[in-house]
């Protein structure tokens, strides 16, 4: 719980700094991401046993597929609720949290929906970081992993590893990996509608 407070504090301070000073940190965000992924790699290398992957079984495909379908259904509901065209709503939700890809992809067609695609998927990632520690204890199995969508193989993997444990880390990585392979094809597909 204390770490969640640290996460929220770091996020709020960052947003305030970004809003009032708009500093240019270059690619520091990216560098921190790579540092984090490197540390997670060491953790996996020290503790991961290939036999654990077999335990995932059919979940390897079913879980990410369910995440994508559920995300699209959510996007459909959001489109109706907000009065946004289905094409845009589905494209935004097909991003599954991958804001750095979804925003620019949609932005090629509409600057407004590109910005919304960026913010909506960034918000998904932020909500995952903030609420995963709470929901992972309340939801059965690996359901909470799906919150993060495609980000579970990188940016939200650390939160999942820290609060869900090493077994969840493996599930989360495979889940994110499958979605990361699929999302770049699905978002443009909806933009063609």
């Amino acid at each position: 719980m204390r770490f969640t407070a640290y996460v929220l504090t770091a996020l709020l301070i960052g947003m305030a700094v970004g809003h009032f000073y708009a500093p240019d940190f270059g690619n520091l965000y990216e560098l921190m991401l790579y540092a984090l992924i490197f540390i997670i790699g060491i953790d996996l290398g020290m503790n991961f046993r290939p036999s654990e992957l077999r335990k995932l079984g059919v979940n390897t495909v079913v879980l990410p597929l369910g995440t994508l379908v559920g995300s699209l259904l959510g996007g459909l509901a959001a489109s109706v609720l907000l009065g946004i065209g289905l094409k845009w709503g589905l494209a935004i939700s097909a991003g599954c949290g991958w804001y750095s890809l979804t925003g620019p992809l949609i932005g090629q067609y509409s600057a407004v929906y590109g910005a919304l695609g960026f913010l909506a998927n960034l918000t998904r990632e932020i909500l995952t970081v903030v609420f995963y520690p709470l929901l992972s204890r309340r939801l059965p199995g690996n359901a909470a992993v799906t919150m993060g969508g495609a980000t579970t193989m990188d940016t939200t993997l650390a939160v999942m590893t820290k609060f869900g444990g090493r077994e969840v880390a493996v599930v989360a990585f495979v889940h994110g990996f499958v979605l990361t392979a699929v999302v770049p094809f699905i978002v443009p597909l909806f933009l063609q509608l």
Partner: protein
Amino acid sequence: MNIFIPLLAGVLIGYLLRIRGRKASLDVPMSAALLLMIFFMGVEAGKVNIDAGWFLGSSIVFAVLTIAGSVGIALLVEGKG
């Protein structure tokens, strides 16, 4: 840079540490890297400054409903499994 490069480098180093029987506590560096990354993510989010109310509200609606949809399907699938 491809995300797989630092990941595979880490896995290799972790594996080498394991076969040499060495243990490393990664809790503190992982927490520090995570907090810094979230700070920088916040900075990027804070810079976005267009029709804040509508964008923020719509983003939250999309984020909440897409998460709810994904978790809902997962619960259905895992309930059957």
